[in-house]
């Protein structure tokens, strides 16, 4: 091979390496974007498959008490009473209640849970222990802090306490897994007492809730969450 051809080949290789170096970041960005889209669609599919109904239009309307944050009331929880058609079945009713709570008040300041959080699964064991599996957004979108995390969990506990007497204690899972904390502060390794939640939320040693009974597993339901039957805005009365 002549020196001329060697130089040409070398030049060609240099051009190829430079072109590759320019193109590789573009390629990496495309791969990253594709991975993100894929994970989003998986999350979306999970939500659609597991999302139960918000309220059951066929059922008679009952008084439903929801607990939201109240910046005017020293950032304590405040209750609002609305009339909603809820199921009599405690499992279905719990799911309905939590979905309505997650749908949240119109006023963003009253929210205790991030708007993109979703209930992925919910089980109710015969001993009154409920297991609520929430999406990762609950942990990642919730503002970090003891107060904000306490408000989030307490609003769930007190809302369940007020509307589903069968639920005695609650275990919260994030994305199907036990999490050490909610967003860095509040302990999620134990269960929370629901019936005593008006006083405090007390985590205790977790019960043996590895595999819920098949009968407690939620059946696939309608995929789209329905809006609450009434407009939820200002709190009506204090707890």
């Amino acid at each position, binding site marked *: 091979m002549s020196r001329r051809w*060697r130089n040409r080949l*070398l030049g060609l*290789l*240099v051009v*190829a*390496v430079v072109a*590759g*170096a320019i193109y*590789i970041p573009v*390629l*990496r960005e495309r*791969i*990253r974007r594709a*991975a993100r889209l894929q994970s989003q669609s998986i999350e979306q599919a999970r939500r659609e498959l597991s999302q139960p109904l918000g309220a059951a239009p066929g059922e008679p309307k009952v008084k439903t008490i929801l607990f939201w944050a109240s*910046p005017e009331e*020293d*950032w304590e929880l405040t209750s609002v009473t609305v009339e909603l058609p809820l199921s009599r079945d405690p499992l279905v009713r719990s799911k309905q209640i939590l979905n309505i709570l997650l749908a949240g008040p119109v006023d963003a300041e009253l929210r205790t849970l991030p708007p993109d959080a979703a209930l992925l699964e919910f089980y109710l064991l015969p001993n009154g222990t409920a297991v609520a599996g929430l999406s990762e957004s609950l942990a990642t979108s919730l*503002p*970090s*802090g*003891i*107060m*904000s*995390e*306490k*408000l989030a*969990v307490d609003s769930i506990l007190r809302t369940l306490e007020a509307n589903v007497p069968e639920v005695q*204690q609650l275990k919260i899972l994030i994305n199907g897994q036990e999490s*050490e*904390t909610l967003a*860095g*502060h*509040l*302990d999620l*390794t*134990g*269960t*929370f*007492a629901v019936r005593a939640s008006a*006083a*405090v*939320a*007390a*985590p*205790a*040693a977790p019960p043996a809730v590895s595999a819920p009974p098949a009968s407690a597993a939620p059946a696939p339901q309608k995929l789209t969450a329905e809006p609450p039957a009434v407009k939820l805005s200002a709190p009506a009365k204090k707890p």
Partner: protein
Amino acid sequence: MLHFVRSLSLLLLTAGLLLAGAMHPQASPPSQQSAQTLVPPAAVPQQSSPPRQEPSGLNVVVLDPAHGGTDTGARGAGGIRESNLVLALTGQVRAALEKQGFTVLQTRKGDDGPSLDDRASLANAQRNAIFISLHVGSTGLPGTVRVYTLPAPQGTPPLAGALLPWERAQAAFLVMSRKLADLAQVQLSMRFKGSPANASAAAVRQLNSVALPAIAIELSNVSVQDPALLERMMPGVADGVAEAVGSFKQVYDAELAHGAPAIQPAQGSVR
């Protein structure tokens, strides 16, 4: 020819390395990878032992600036980071406590992030001590302060003199923790208008394994537009905490004189 082969090898190696990087878009940079796999977890800063000549009565305060390292904690507008703020706050609280004669230990002194268990281990190695975890939250009325203890446990709490499960060690010290929390909340509500009069209960993970009277204090909040507001709170918080710990020492020492088990666990009793 040899020169050409060397150049070609070098080019192919460069291209290979670039392509290898492209095939692993999720991988961490090499510096991060080695930090994750080779460097041992950040050790709890070495502290000088509390003076042995003062065995009786409360004399040690373990301050825990929350978060640190890769965990920045709450983040606010203008780049406010909870991990930095609590470190500055800890310095001021430490100075106020040392003025009162307490020996003060810190679970971290720099921007490292010891694990929750490491922090609890440091605290549990002390006798006649209390534990205070310092936080700055994301919500709440700006310029207010809240003090937290763990809530009452479900079932029978373990006894302090007995073996304590690591994750439930605090349950045996809750009575004293509440007294400390109430004293701190009173002092802080006097200094910061809008703060609640009574301490709150929350399942703060950091407090679970601490076998000492333990509280968490949270300032509100990182969402303020002007970080100076939080910095201006620090001397007041430091004074309030020092005042409360001084008052609590009287309660603690009186309980200790009566041999109250909930403040004197047997050595090595936490498992």
